[in-house]
C-alpha cells in the first residue's frame, strides 16, 4: 500500500566524485556552492521550499566542507531545474557548484525536483525527482538531498539523514533526572523526541550499526542492567538480566550481538561478555581481576578494543573477538577510557585524563599516531559519525559547592580538530550516539 502512493524517480549520472576529499588532508578549504531559491507553485510549496533550502544550507555549511555563496551576489535568479544556468554568471561570483530545486503538488503528494551543476565544467552532475505523501517527511527530504550533494561532490558517504540518541539531563547535579532522547543529527527541535519518562536513571545509549535499535543501561528497580529498545516497535527488553550489574553495552557490527560488561556478584569484578541476541547465549571474553569495560568492536567484527586497569591504571587494550591475544595499545601518559572503533576501521577514538584535563583523541588501531582533537576540564563519550569523518561527544563545565555550574552539552567536531560546534538540545545533553544512515 505504501508503495502505491510513492512515486520516486532517481537518476545518477556518474559515480565519480567531483572533488576528492580525504581525511588525511587536514583542514579542508570549504567548497563554495550556490543554492538558488527552492521555488514553489503556491504558498505551501513555497514554504516547503524555504524549509528545504534552510536544511540543505545548514547541513552543508555545518559539515565544514562547504560554504554557501551570499545570495545577494547572485546574478541569475531563475528556477534552474528545467533551464540551463548561465554558468558565466555563477563563475563570476565564484560558486563552484550550483544547486537548484523546485517543489510542487501532484496527486501523489509533494514533488521535489533538484539539479546539481558543476559550474566550472558547465555541466549538470546530478538530478533527482522524488515525491513524498505529506509534509511530515520534508526534513528527511532535506537531509537526503544534502547527502546526495555531499556524496556527489566530496566522494564520501553522507551523514545527514541520521539521528542522534542521547541522554537528556535536568535537575540538581546530585539528583539528576536523565531521559533517553532522540533527534535529527542537526538537533532541530521539530525532530526532538523523548524516549523514556525519567523515572529510572538511564545511561550510555548506542545505536545498532544496521537498524533502528538502541542498547543502553537503565536502573530498573534500582538494579543497573543492559536493555535494548526497538525504536520502530517501541519494544524494550532487558538483555543483561543476571544477578549482577550489566553495563557498557555496544552492538557488534552485524547488530546481532551485544558486547558488554558484566560484574560478577560474588566478586564485583567486571568482565567483558558477548551476548547473541538471537540465541541469548552468553560468552565470556576476558578473565582478569582488573576492571574490564567499554568494549567496542572493529567494523569487520574481528577485534575488540576495551578499557582495563589490569596493568594498574586504566588503559586501552585490543583482543580478538574470542578474547585471545590481548595487547595494550595506549602508550601515552594518563588515564585512558571510552575507546570507540571508527566505522572506517582505521582509527580508535578515546578519552584521556592527564594533567587535570580530559582529552578526546584518535589513534591508529595499534596505538600509534595518537593525536588530541579537543581538550577541556571534562569531556566524555566520543561517538563516530557513520562516515567516520566526525565525532560527537559531551563537554561538562565545572560545578560549584552551591550547586551551580556543571552544564553539559553535546558537541560536533571534525576529526582534524576543526569546525567544532554545539548540537543544540532543549535541556542539557550527554552520552550522544549516532545512528546509521536511515
Amino acid at each position, binding site marked *: 500500500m505504501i508503495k502505491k502512493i510513492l512515486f*520516486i524517480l532517481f537518476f545518477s549520472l556518474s559515480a565519480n566524485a567531483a572533488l576528492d576529499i580525504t581525511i588525511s588532508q587536514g583542514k579542508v578549504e570549504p567548497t563554495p556552492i550556490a543554492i538558488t531559491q527552492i521555488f514553489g507553485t503556491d504558498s505551501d510549496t513555497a514554504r516547503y521550499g524555504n524549509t528545504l533550502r534552510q536544511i540543505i544550507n545548514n547541513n552543508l555549511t555545518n559539515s565544514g566542507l562547504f560554504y554557501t555563496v551570499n545570495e545577494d551576489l547572485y546574478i541569475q535568479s531563475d528556477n534552474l531545474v528545467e533551464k540551463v544556468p548561465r554558468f558565466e554568471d555563477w563563475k563570476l561570483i565564484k560558486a563552484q557548484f550550483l544547486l537548484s530545486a523546485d517543489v510542487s503538488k501532484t496527486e501523489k503528494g509533494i514533488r521535489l525536483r533538484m539539479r546539481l551543476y558543476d559550474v566550472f565544467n558547465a555541466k549538470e552532475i546530478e538530478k533527482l525527482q522524488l515525491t513524498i505523501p505529506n509534509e*511530515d517527511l520534508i526534513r528527511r527530504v532535506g537531509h537526503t538531498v544534502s547527502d546526495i550533494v555531499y556524496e556527489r561532490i566530496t566522494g564520501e558517504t553522507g551523514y545527514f539523514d541520521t539521528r542522534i540518541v542521547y541522554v537528556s539531563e535536568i535537575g540538581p547535579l546530585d539528583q539528576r533526572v536523565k531521559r533517553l532522547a532522540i533527534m535529527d543529527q542537526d538537533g532541530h527541535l521539530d525532530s526532538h523526541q523523548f524516549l523514556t519518562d525519567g523515572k529510572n536513571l538511564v545511561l550510555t545509549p548506542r545505536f545498532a550499526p544496521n537498524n533502528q535499535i538502541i542498547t543502553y543501561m537503565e536502573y530498573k528497580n534500582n538494579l543497573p542492567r543492559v536493555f535494548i529498545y526497538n525504536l520502530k516497535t517501541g519494544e524494550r527488553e532487558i538483555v543483561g538480566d543476571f544477578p549482577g550489574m550489566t553495563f557498557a553495552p555496544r552492538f557488534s557490527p552485524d547488530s546481532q550481538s551485544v558486547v558488554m560488561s558484566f560484574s560478577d556478584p560474588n566478586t564485583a569484578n567486571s568482565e567483558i561478555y558477548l551476548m547473541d541476541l538471537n540465541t541469548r547465549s552468553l560468552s565470556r571474553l576476558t578473565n582478569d581481576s582488573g576492571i574490564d*569495560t567499554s568494549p567496542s568492536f572493529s567494523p569487520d567484527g574481528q577485534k575488540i578494543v576495551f578499557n582495563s586497569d589490569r596493568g594498574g591504571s586504566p588503559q586501552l587494550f585490543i583482543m580478538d573477538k574470542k578474547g585471545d591475544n590481548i595487547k595494550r595499545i595506549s602508550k601515552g601518559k594518563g588515564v585512558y577510557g571510552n575507546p570507540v572503533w571508527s566505522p572506517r576501521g582505521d582509527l580508535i577514538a578515546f578519552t584521556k585524563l592527564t594533567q587535570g584535563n580530559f582529552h578526546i583523541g584518535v589513534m591508529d588501531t595499534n596505538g600509534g599516531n595518537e593525536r588530541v582533537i579537543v581538550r577541556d576540564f571534562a569531556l566524555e563519550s566520543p561517538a563516530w559519525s557513520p562516515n567516520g569523518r566526525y565525532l560527537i561527544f559531551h563537554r561538562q563545565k*565545572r560545578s560549584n*559547592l552551591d550547586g551551580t555550574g556543571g552544564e553539559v552539552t553535546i558537541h560536533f567536531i571534525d576529526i582534524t580538530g576543526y569546525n567544532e560546534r554545539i548540537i543544540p538540545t532543549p535541556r542539557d545533553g550527554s552520552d550522544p550516539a549516532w545512528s546509521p544512515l536511515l
Partner: protein
Amino acid sequence: MLKKLFMLFVAGFFLASCAATKTEEGGNVDAASTSASSSSGGEITAGTQEDLIVNVGDRVFFEFDSSELTVDAQATLDAQAAWLTQYPDTNITVEGHADERGTREYNLALGDKRAFSVYSYLAQAGIDTNRMEYVSWGKERPEVIGSDETAYSQNRRGVTIVSN
C-alpha cells in the same frame, strides 16, 4: 541509492507511529540512592538509618581510583558490623560511588568494587549476606556538588543504607 530513497519513505511512516513516550518527567528519583536526612531534633529511633548515621557512621571513603578499605574505613565498618549484630532485623543495601574524574563506565565498575569491599568486609565480620545487597551508582549521585578535591574525596564513598 534507489533502495535507500525508497526505505526513507517506508521509514517515514514509522516516525508517526513510533511509540515514544511524551509524558513529563517526574515521580521519585531513585529513592534508594538518596542519603538519609538528618535529625530534626527529636529522639533517634534505635536501629534506623538515622541511628546508624549519628551513632555509628553510615559511610566510608576511598582513595582516588581505589576500592581498598582504609584503616579508618575498617574501623567504621567494624562499628557498623556491631550495630548490625545488635539489630538483627535490619537489612541493608551498600551503595558504591565514584568521583567525577573518570569515565561513566569505568566509574560504574569502580563503584561496584567499592560497594563490594564494604559488603564483603561486613560479611567477614559475621553479617549474614541474606541481609545485604550492594549496588554501584558510579559517578551519577554525588554527595557533594563541586569540581575540586574536597568534593571528590566525599564522593568516593561506600554508603550503608538501611532498607527496611
